[in-house]
């Protein structure tokens, strides 16, 4: 089986220094792949590189990102735009800032259905309504007429999830989709993403710093530090038997999903210093 | 030392105007009032010595332009300074004392904003009688609001800051706090406004001259020249072009100076 996303030797740098160093990873169809690391590890940069939205000042210095055999980095902006939304979609990090405050939910949710799938307004709204049903929003008709500020954070994230799935994309990138939410809502949203992913058989690239989340929904995981891949493999295996000392330390520093009361160890400074030496070598 | 080019260009041009106004008798090739009907409406360079041509009475355009700087600058500096003084004082009081003083000043500003300023100035000068003093009074009466509005807002903000409270705790009186603590911090904004206001004052004077209400028609003013130029525009475009150009450059200079000052002083405000 050929991978849906195949990143090969991707390197990127900013004015300050390298951000990604020779990153390679592949995601198979229908699989959930976690990108794990602390902030600055480069996991978000990888997601942004796939979506073609790297901020000004960060430039890719080498490597390829193959999506179903096409190198995304070689595409013209127009060709990339043709793929986005339809074949690749995003569930953003912050539902509060990711919806346009001046437009109704219905208009925003149906953008893709109307402009990309060519539906008329009526059909697009019918489809949007069933999408909202799928993400367990009650009274979808009324919600479609609302403005974002009239919905709670959890509701907004559901809307954004519905939007991401609306055109049945092959790949969805979820960029820390639960970080901005209340703890109680986090679980529901996580479960929703997993259910939707299974139902649509979507390939999911899940960016997170939370190993608990990884354990719950990801098939495989890639651990990053300082823009470098430290470890890659099946989630269950890595969590049980981490090979890299950093992953081990990270595990010790996270609350265990099965033993939340366990006391936490910070990542030892000596280890960090060693990692940094290793990376810059 | 400001590095902003706009401050140097704007300030330089204004300095140039000041020098022209001071040495007008030396610079002007002709007496600005001297009529020469034989050489009336001569195009630039046609009559010897009349480099910028002559108007319908044969008066030298260049000489009138040079003498015109005197009225323009007098109005710019005197009217703007007085409007600044009045507006800043009222703005400081309104912003600092709040309460009924603020309510009064704010209401006055609202009412003033409801008048078209040009109409109000024409009306004022008509009531007071044409003349330089009336023009200056009219500009002060109309434009004090520009200062009052901004200074009031700025003072409200400053008075809330800690140094004002600290000064108050030290037992400083209201007057001393206003004078020594608040005013210096509001001053940069006032300076910028003052520069912009000078440009506005020059325009208002020109407009009043244009309507025929400024100083007596004997005294050369840019506005008066423009008014005459508008009337004989089909016969002698140069009578309009040169004073209009002078007005344009002067307004632009005051504006660029103001904008430059704003940027230069801004980081100081934020400190």
């Amino acid at each position, binding site marked *: 089986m050929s991978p849906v996303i195949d990143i090969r030797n991707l390197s990127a740098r900013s004015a300050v220094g390298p951000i990604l160093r020779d990153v390679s990873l592949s995601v198979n169809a229908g699989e959930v792949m976690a990108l794990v690391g602390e902030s600055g590890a480069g996991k978000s940069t990888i997601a942004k590189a796939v979506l073609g939205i790297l901020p000004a000042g960060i430039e890719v210095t080498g490597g390829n990102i193959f999506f179903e055999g096409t190198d995304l980095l070689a595409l013209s902006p127009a060709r990339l735009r043709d*793929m*986005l939304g339809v074949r690749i979609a995003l569930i953003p990090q912050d539902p509060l800032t990711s*919806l346009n405050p001046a437009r109704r939910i219905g208009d925003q949710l149906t953008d893709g259905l109307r402009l990309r799938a060519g539906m008329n307004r009526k059909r697009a709204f019918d489809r949007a309504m069933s999408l909202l049903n799928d993400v367990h929003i009650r009274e979808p008709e009324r919600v479609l007429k609302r403005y974002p500020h009239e919905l709670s954070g959890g509701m907004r994230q559901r809307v954004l999830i519905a939007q991401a799935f609306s055109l049945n994309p092959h790949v969805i990138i979820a960029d820390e989709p639960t970080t901005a939410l209340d703890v109680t809502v986090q679980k529901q949203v996580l479960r929703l993403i997993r259910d939707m992913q299974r139902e649509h058989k979507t390939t999911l690239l899940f960016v997170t710093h939370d190993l608990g989340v990884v354990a719950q929904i990801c098939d495989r995981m890639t651990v990053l530090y300082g823009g470098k891949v430290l470890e890659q493999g099946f989630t269950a295996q890595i969590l049980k038997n981490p090979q890299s000392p950093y992953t081990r330390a990270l595990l010790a520093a996270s609350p265990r999903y099965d033993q939340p009361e366990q006391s936490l160890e910070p990542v030892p400074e000596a280890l960090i210093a060693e990692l940094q030496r290793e990376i810059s070598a | 030392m400001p590095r902003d080019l706009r401050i140097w260009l704007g300030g330089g041009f204004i300095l140039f105007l000041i020098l022209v106004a001071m040495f007008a008798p030396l610079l002007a090739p002709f007496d600005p009032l001297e009529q020469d009907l034989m050489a009336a409406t001569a195009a630039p360079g046609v009559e010897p010595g009349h480099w910028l041509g002559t108007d319908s009475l044969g008066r030298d355009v260049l000489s009138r332009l040079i003498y015109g700087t005197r009225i323009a600058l007098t109005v710019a500096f005197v009217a703007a300074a007085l409007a600044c003084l009045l507006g800043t004082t009222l703005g400081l009081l309104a912003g600092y004392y709040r309460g009924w003083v603020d309510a009064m000043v704010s*209401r006055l500003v609202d009412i003033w904003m*409801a008048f*078209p300023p040009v109409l109000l100035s024409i009306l004022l000068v008509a009531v007071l009688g044409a003349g330089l003093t009336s023009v200056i009074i009219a500009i002060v009466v109309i434009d004090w609001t520009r200062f009052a509005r901004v200074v009031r807002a700025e003072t409200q903000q400053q008075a809330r800051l800690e140094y004002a409270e600290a000064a108050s705790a030290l037992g400083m009186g209201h007057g001393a706090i206003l004078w020594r603590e608040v005013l210096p911090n509001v001053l940069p904004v006032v300076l910028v406004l003052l520069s912009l206001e000078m440009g506005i004052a020059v325009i208002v004077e020109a407009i009043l001259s244009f309507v*025929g209400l400024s100083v007596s028609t004997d005294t050369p003013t840019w506005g008066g020249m423009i008014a005459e130029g508008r009337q004989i*525009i*089909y016969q002698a475009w140069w009578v309009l072009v040169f004073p*209009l150009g002078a007005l344009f450059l002067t307004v632009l200079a005051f504006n660029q100076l103001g904008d430059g000052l704003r940027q230069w002083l801004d980081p100081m405000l934020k400190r």
Partner: protein
Amino acid sequence: MPLSIILSRALSALLTLFGVMVVVFVLVRVVPGDPISMMIAPGATDADIAALRAHYGLDLPIWQQFWVWFKQVLQGNLGTSISMKQGVITIIAQRLPATLELAIFALIMAVIWGGFIALVSTAWRGTWVERAIDNFNGIMLAVPDFIWALTFVLVLGVLVPVLPISGRSDPSIDAGLATQFYILEGLARAKFAFVWDVLKHMLLPACALAFPLAAVIGRVLKNTMMDVMVQDYITLARIKGLSSIRILLQEALRNAAVPALALTGVQFTFLIGGTVITERIFSYPGIGNLAIDAVINRDLPLIQGLVLTFGIIFIIVNMAVDALTVWLNPRLRHA
């Protein structure tokens, strides 16, 4: 918006209007000089003056005079013009449409031009296009309508005479209209040649009025658009595959329009104030030009009526802007 806020806004507007009336009234009476001397024609006898005095109630104490005038105004009676021997209301009603059509035409031009400036410089942000527009905008902003008006007269009216520089329409065309709303009625009656002629007459004065406003709109709109363009929902719209133009117009412009609108409202009142001198320069038959004539002719009732008219327009514009701001901002609408 809660009713209490609407009420307090309306009350504040009325108070401002009342203040405007007081100021006009006091201005033409208390300031040195006998108001009657502003009115009399040369060669009037003492008896004429006394009669005029009684006619205008000028023999009463000033506060009574004000009260008389105030009551008249409330009844819709602004008196009779001294120079034109006609009811002030009649004269204003005849001239107001010309000014309204000019001001609104100028506003539309300013909004389109300013919006265009903002969109282009946002789309090409960080390039020489943005810097060039910024510099040009700075000049448009610094130079007032008075100078623009005269420049247009000179350049487009005289040196390259492509447009008319005086009046409202070609006097040789008699369109036979019933109202003074030349454009509205002309369009309604499908007299397109006439409307075209009126528009040509309006173009230069409207440009002079529109330039400074367009510069303000352009600058504010661009700054707010720049802030909006880095928002997450813009990035997400890009990821949804929306085109750049759609993102600019549908996502960014609408959010940036609200803050720009409030300022446009204030600036529009400046534009209306600018009609006074601009109409004069273009001999345009509106109330601004009329007002200057009224002052020169010392036509007291007409001056009062005109200043009041400007005040009312000012207050209406402000209230309309408030309403529009609320309507465009969903957060305020439901609050």
